[in-house]
């Protein structure tokens, strides 16, 4: 067993600093946000939201790694679950809206009733 542990240990230092991961997460987040800001298609906006969620996940995991505490993993796990729920409902709404308005462009969806 010890041998195995040794085998799993990556011998070569140094490893990637956590801050890189965080930077990457930030970039990803901002890109997703940018998409949310500029795209018109509700579906694509959803995808961008997913991007943002993933950025958050990445951060969670990075910190988990940093502190060696698997609670971060759990959080990421929950985020994924919530994302699934969100996607389901969101897409359902998109379908409903498309039925009623024949469009999925956000600027066509300004009023609640119509």
């Amino acid at each position, binding site marked *: 067993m*010890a041998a195995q*542990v040794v085998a*799993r*240990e*990556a011998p*070569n230092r*140094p490893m*990637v*600093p*956590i*801050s*890189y*991961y*965080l*930077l*990457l997460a*930030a970039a*990803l987040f*901002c*890109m*997703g946000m*940018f998409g*949310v*800001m*500029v*795209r*018109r298609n509700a*579906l*694509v906006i*959803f*995808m961008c939201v*997913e*991007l943002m969620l*993933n950025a958050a*996940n*990445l951060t969670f995991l990075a910190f*988990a*790694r*940093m502190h*060696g505490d*698997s609670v971060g*993993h*759990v959080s*990421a*796990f*929950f985020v*994924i*679950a*919530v994302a*699934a*729920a*969100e996607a*389901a409902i969101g*897409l*359902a709404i998109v*379908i*409903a809206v498309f039925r009623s308005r024949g469009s*999925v*462009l956000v*600027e066509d969806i300004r009023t609640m009733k119509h």
Partner: protein
Amino acid sequence: MNIELILFGAFALLTLLSAGTVIFARSPINSAMALVSTFFFLAGLYVLLWAHTVAVLQVMVYAGAIMVLFLFVIMLLNLGESPTRGRPTLARIVGGAATLGLLVVLGIALSKLPSGPPPSLGVEGQATFGTMATMGQVVFTQWLLPFEAVSLLLLVAMVGAVVVAKSRI
């Protein structure tokens, strides 16, 4: 120059590229495909972060279930090509600018962080960290209640989706 660094660089680059594609692709289909690839590369990064289980979940749930859902919807609505950006309204300009500003700020902030290597997990840590067993242990003891709550949430979401998407409400 070690393998891990190389892997990280590659994954990061690809992630960003495909993310960019998600944003700028003309048709939703392309965006969706790009998103799938983003997820894959992210999964790779997760592995580098010693989070095997989450990586697996990422691939299964995201790239598998959720994206399939997206694709179904896109086809259901068979949306054709759509202009990437509409008229640059004030809101869009401001939002975009704000986002870029945020990026800059975050960049500055994170660049101030000490860029030392993460602490070693130690022997038994490497044996257990990020494994299904550990996560299961945590989830099913102290996070039991939230876990059940999430399950309930999913159920509700499912029912809600059915109700909302039904043709005649």
